[in-house]
């Protein structure tokens, strides 16, 4: 009883927090207030078992624990006087998808009815004890492009039955639905990961199957190995599936998942939705010239999607993290929890002298190669070492200056039509960890290297770059092949790598910079960035040690 009360209280608090107007925080964020890092040593301690992570936090062997996903842990930590919890609605989205290419899911009435029979609120309440919210749209509500004014299908099995009956569907003597053309729905398999890999997902799949079977759609959950499942989705060899996505602040996932151009082998339009009107809107979204056009297209796309129902949004899991009260200076907003870069810049002991800060790393970092690393565990480290030209405001999720102090976004006429030209003005006085000054040539060389080698991780970011020029040491002009407001995020978000290090790398695929010695500085490795932390050491299975970058441009402003 206590648990559910606490969960209810938390959910209510979150909702109250989230529904407060975004403008209250907008414009108040000042990166200069985070001039740091204050800590000298940052240890990312590798602890895999969630119980051991909790014990470490409680015993003072760890200071920050990010992404708590078990409600029971959140309940346990909420009672600890030594720990402060922060919670934020994230970009996680969990969906039920259909293969709309064939019968029966090619019927939009059936898809709408399926949405309506799912007891989403109850599933979320039962399985997540309040630490997730039912999702009714195709972008999570935290997204700046979220459109609240769309058609919704609240849980109402009777209304679903009525819709089907009105559309000419009937029920056979065995209770199974028969289409207006007289075709009976054959048994359907709902593919999902196994309970050992994803216990809640497997449970949700079973509950969905029950709910759908109850109105005459014979569905059975079929758990399988996750990569087998992905393979089946890639091959379009499925009827129904459940899958979660971690989306980004940009609504480009709408294009990836629902444009008919992405319904190719391995493309993300797994459901196979193909609608000319939707395609036009999604093209407008992908190549929106400015923010207003992007916003209008994103809104229109969400409205169309809620009519077409290629997938049913189910829930979005909150991000929850815990920080020891022995530290102060964390930044928490309604968009981010305490385990963010701003906190790491500003944190210092609540009392007493400076000491090392211990952050839990839930798994081994992999290659620590900025070209190839795609795991979140690698980027938890690499993200503290390398910087991009732009950063994200933790309150509004808007773009703010970082290595680039300003930029212009211009549309000009090129030989093959209009194109976007991005001109960045780089901050002066920024240095690499080894003391070499950062210039526009570093950024240009990074983009050229990624483009020339078609590095998979950055393929989408650099694919549309036409030319990169450096009129002077601190000006970078990037001419794109076409027009899009998103070009700024895609290009500006790429981590800038040092030319003097990268140009000596002969094989970017097998480059292991963390185990290379720096040619002149014995304290450094091949991981040389401009970021707030300097890589010092990785002991496999134990920890990664970083130290505060004394040359960090923002830190020098102190």
């Amino acid at each position, binding site marked *: 009883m206590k648990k559910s009360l606490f969960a209810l209280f938390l959910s209510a608090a979150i909702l109250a927090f989230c529904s407060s107007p975004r403008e209250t925080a907008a414009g108040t964020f000042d990166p200069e207030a985070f001039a740091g890092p204050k800590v000298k*040593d940052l*240890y990312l*301690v*590798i*602890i*895999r*078992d969630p*119980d*051991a992570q909790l*014990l*470490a936090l*409680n*015993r003072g*062997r760890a200071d920050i624990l990010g992404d708590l996903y078990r409600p029971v842990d959140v309940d346990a930590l909420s009672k600890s006087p030594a720990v402060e919890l922060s919670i934020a609605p994230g970009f996680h989205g969990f969906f039920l998808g259909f293969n709309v290419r064939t019968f029966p899911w090619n019927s939009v009435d059936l898809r709408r009815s399926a949405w309506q029979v799912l007891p989403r609120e109850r599933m979320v309440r039962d399985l997540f004890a309040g630490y997730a919210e039912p999702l009714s749209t195709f972008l999570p509500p935290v997204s700046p492009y979220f459109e609240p004014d769309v058609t919704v299908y609240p849980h109402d099995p009777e209304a679903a039955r009525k819709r089907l009956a009105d559309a000419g569907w009937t029920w056979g003597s065995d209770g199974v639905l028969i289409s207006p053309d007289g075709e009976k729905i054959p048994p359907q398999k709902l593919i999902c990961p196994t309970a050992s890999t994803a216990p809640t997902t497997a449970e949700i799949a079973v509950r969905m199957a029950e709910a759908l079977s109850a109105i005459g759609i014979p569905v059975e959950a079929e758990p399988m*190995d*996750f*990569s*087998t499942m*992905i*393979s089946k989705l*890639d091959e379009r060899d499925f009827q129904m599936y459940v899958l979660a*996505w*971690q989306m*980004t602040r940009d609504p480009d*996932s709408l294009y*990836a998942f629902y444009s008919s151009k992405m319904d*190719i*082998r*391995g*493309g*993300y339009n797994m459901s196979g939705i193909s609608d000319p009107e939707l395609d036009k809107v999604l093209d407008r979204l992908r190549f929106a010239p400015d923010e207003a056009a992007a916003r209008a297209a994103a809104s229109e796309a969400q409205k169309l999607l809620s009519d077409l129902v290629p997938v049913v949004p189910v829930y979005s899991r909150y991000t929850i993290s815990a920080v020891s009260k022995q530290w102060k200076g964390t930044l928490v907003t309604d968009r981010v929890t305490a385990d963010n870069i701003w906190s790491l810049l500003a944190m210092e002991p609540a009392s007493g002298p400076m000491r*090392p800060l*211990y952050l839990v790393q839930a798994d*081994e970092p*992999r*290659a620590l*190669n900025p070209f*190839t*690393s*795609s795991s979140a565990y690698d980027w938890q480290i690499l993200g503290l070492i390398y910087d991009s030209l732009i950063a994200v405001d933790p309150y509004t999720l808007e773009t703010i200056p970082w290595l680039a102090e300003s930029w212009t976004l211009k549309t000009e006429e090129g030989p093959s039509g209009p194109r976007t030209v991005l001109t960045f003005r780089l901050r002066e006085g920024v240095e690499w960890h080894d003391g070499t000054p950062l210039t526009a040539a570093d950024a240009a060389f990074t983009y050229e290297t990624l483009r020339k080698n*078609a590095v*998979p*991780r950055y*393929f*989408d970011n650099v*694919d549309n770059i036409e030319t990169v020029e450096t009129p002077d040491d601190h000006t970078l002009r990037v001419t794109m092949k076409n027009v899009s407001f998103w070009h700024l995020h895609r290009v500006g978000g790429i981590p800038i790598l040092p030319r003097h290090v990268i140009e000596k790398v002969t094989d970017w*695929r*097998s480059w*292991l910079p963390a185990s290379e010695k720096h040619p002149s500085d014995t304290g450094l490795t091949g991981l040389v960035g401009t970021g707030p932390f300097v890589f010092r050491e990785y*002991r*496999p*299975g*134990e*920890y990664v*040690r970083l130290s505060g970058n004394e040359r960090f441009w923002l830190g020098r402003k102190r």
Partner: protein
Amino acid sequence: MSGYWARRTGSALLVLGLVLVLNFVLFRMMPGDPVASIIDPNFSPEAKARLSEVYGLDQPLPVQFLLYVRSTLTFDFGISFLTGRPVIDELKSRLPNTVMLLGTSLVLSSLLGTWLGMKAALKRGSLLEKCVLWSGALSFSFPSFFVQLVLLMAFAAALPLFPLRGTLSVPPPAGGLPLLLDYLWHMALPVFSLVLLGFGGWALYVRNLMVKILGEDFILLARARGLPERNIILGHAFRTLLPPLLTIFLLSLPGVVSGAVITETVFSLHGVGRFLLEAVTGHDYPAAGASFFLLAFLTVSCNLLSDLLYGLTDPRVRMERGGRR
């Protein structure tokens, strides 16, 4: 005798060859796409195709097989899809921890189990025997993660006598001896947990076997001949017990490499067990291939060794072989 050795070695090599082929075929026949499991969901299809090319998955199967055989025979297992580091480096950094953890606990639990089992068999009906039977059954039947978590909570969290995780303190102490002591201190609780979970099986097995041996005619004969009890136990009974024990011990050795998934997770140890599991579930062909080959190699060689040692420890086997010549 040498013909027997040659035959056994030959068949062991044949098995290893078959393992090589099966290893290759099985992993490639497994459902699922290796590229699908390692890519970022935001990758475009072009990027996926390129990734497949990077890892040589677009080559025809025979070419992939030849590359695989060559790399295995030269111990160049290639680059792990998942970690991006050479597989051999991954194994080298993990193997010492796993061998230390499971090797030590195997030796300790077999010694303790054998000793307790023999004691119980010699004192039938005593309180000691009851204790051994009960504790043996309990040790045998508790789930490992449960026991290990309880130990962790009791001796690392509530009574902070042992560390919570890993094989070294963060930051590690300076100097050779303090570092070694720190390592041993970190390994103590996981090793203890495995001894606690493992001794029971040994104790029950040894006790049952010993009871059977003690009832055999040759023991009765030795007693009738008035030999001292110590000679009967060590010279006759234990000698008969030794070959099957040795076989079990040797056949448990390959498990030293593979069997530590749960322990390594609970105690956050950097070992081979978890690597193997991740390699298989993540379709990491080079890593999984190397780990399975290593396992097969260990199994086959331990099998061979146990056969050969059986001949040395059991006179009946020696005579039988002598007769064949």
